[in-house]
């Protein structure tokens, strides 16, 4: 008996079953979702990201931040994400509608970033942290991203967007300042846009104990 068509059929059908369930189904059920309107402000959940934050996603992707930082809030008792304050509720599919690519992440070498824009709303803090993480958190193992910044001589007045309060071995010497490049600004705009504490009907806040 010619085994080839039989094996081919079996190989195809078993593969097709998971293709239907894990690829086609999410494509139709999740991939076509729309943001929900927010009656209070006339905006949407999730809120649209400003253009700079959108560009920041690309910087986040180019530099591989997702390999240490996840962006998922999970429910109890599977996790203590909510108790630890990573977010008020489980993140669900709609939360990631604006994300491209979607940085769910699979490692927490560094803290989860789902709501980092809520925890750390100060742009200068982010610039300091990206420039030399160990000066902000001395036990951090995050690599420095000094190459996203420019060291330049101060011309008269310090620039408006110069990073303030730098310290440590790579702090700018007297008469110099550290200025973020466009990439750094985009990245920080992206990080500041990471706020997923708006309500969504499909993810009710867990009852308070």
């Amino acid at each position, binding site marked *: 008996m010619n085994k080839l068509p039989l094996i081919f059929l079996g190989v195809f059908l078993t593969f097709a079953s998971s293709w239907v369930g894990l690829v086609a189904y999410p494509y139709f*059920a*999740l991939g076509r979702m729309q943001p929900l309107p927010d009656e209070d402000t006339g905006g949407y959940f999730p809120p649209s990201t400003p253009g700079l934050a959108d560009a920041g996603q690309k910087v986040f992707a180019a530099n591989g931040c997702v390999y240490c930082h996840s962006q998922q809030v999970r*429910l109890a008792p599977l996790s203590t994400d*909510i*108790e*630890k*304050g*990573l977010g*008020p509720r*489980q993140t*669900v*599919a709609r939360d990631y509608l604006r994300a491209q690519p979607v940085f769910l992440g699979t490692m927490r070498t560094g803290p989860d970033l789902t*709501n980092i824009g*809520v*925890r*750390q*709303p*100060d742009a200068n*803090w982010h610039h300091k942290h990206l420039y030399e993480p160990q000066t902000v*958190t001395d036990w951090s193992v995050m690599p420095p991203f000094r190459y996203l910044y420019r060291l330049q001589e101060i011309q008269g007045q310090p620039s408006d967007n110069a990073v303030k309060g730098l310290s440590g071995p790579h702090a700018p010497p007297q008469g110099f300042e550290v200025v973020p490049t466009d990439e750094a600004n985009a990245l920080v705009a992206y990080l500041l846009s990471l706020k997923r*504490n708006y309500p969504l009907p*499909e*993810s*009710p*806040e*867990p*009852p*308070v104990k």
Partner: protein
Amino acid sequence: MNVGRVHGSILREQKEPKDGYEPVPLWLLTLFFAIVFWAGLYLAYYSGDFRADVFNPARAAAGAGAAPAAGPVDPKVIGKRVFTQNCVICHQATGLGVPGQFPPLVGSEWVLGGDWHGDNHLVKILLNGLQGPVQVKGETYNNAMPPWAQLSDEQIAAVLTYIRSEWGNAAPPITVDYVRKMREATAGRVDPWSQKDLQAIPLEKVPEAPAAPAAADTPAASPAPTLPATPAAATAPSTPQ
């Protein structure tokens, strides 16, 4: 077609592999069916009715966990919820903060009142945020607390009342009217406060709320008058732990 020189390595090979025909052990088949049975049960219980909008495997159908609506809710419950949603991230569920990073709320003079710390400072922090070096219980912190003006007056009053009555803290509640008054007073302000800014503002205390207090277990309201000044901590109703 080139026929390669037949190497010693090929000559010494065994024949190509063949199949034997031992039967499948019965115990393996039994195990197989037992696992399939378990699988069916698991899928029945933990699949959220196979709905696309149920993200919690422990829930049978959407809406089961929806927050109850209608009726006035105990402000302490609101306060705790607001705290858990927004403040736990930094100040932690224990109110102890993170050493060196986020100041504690337990026994903090900023929360309970101190030499120059008044209720007005506390509300202003929530409305506009706080930056720069701050001293809390003898330690210095230098982080950035975001403004929470987007919370309603009720929510701010509730969460402040919560932190002033939790973890052994005992201070009078913050009223909704007081928050409203503070919000009006700081209406034009954009920048966060610094410790220096706040220290320049004289201490104020919340006027005793004439309306029935909602929470049953808040400590007795302060007998102090409504006017500011008198920096003495003697007006504080109870000593923080």
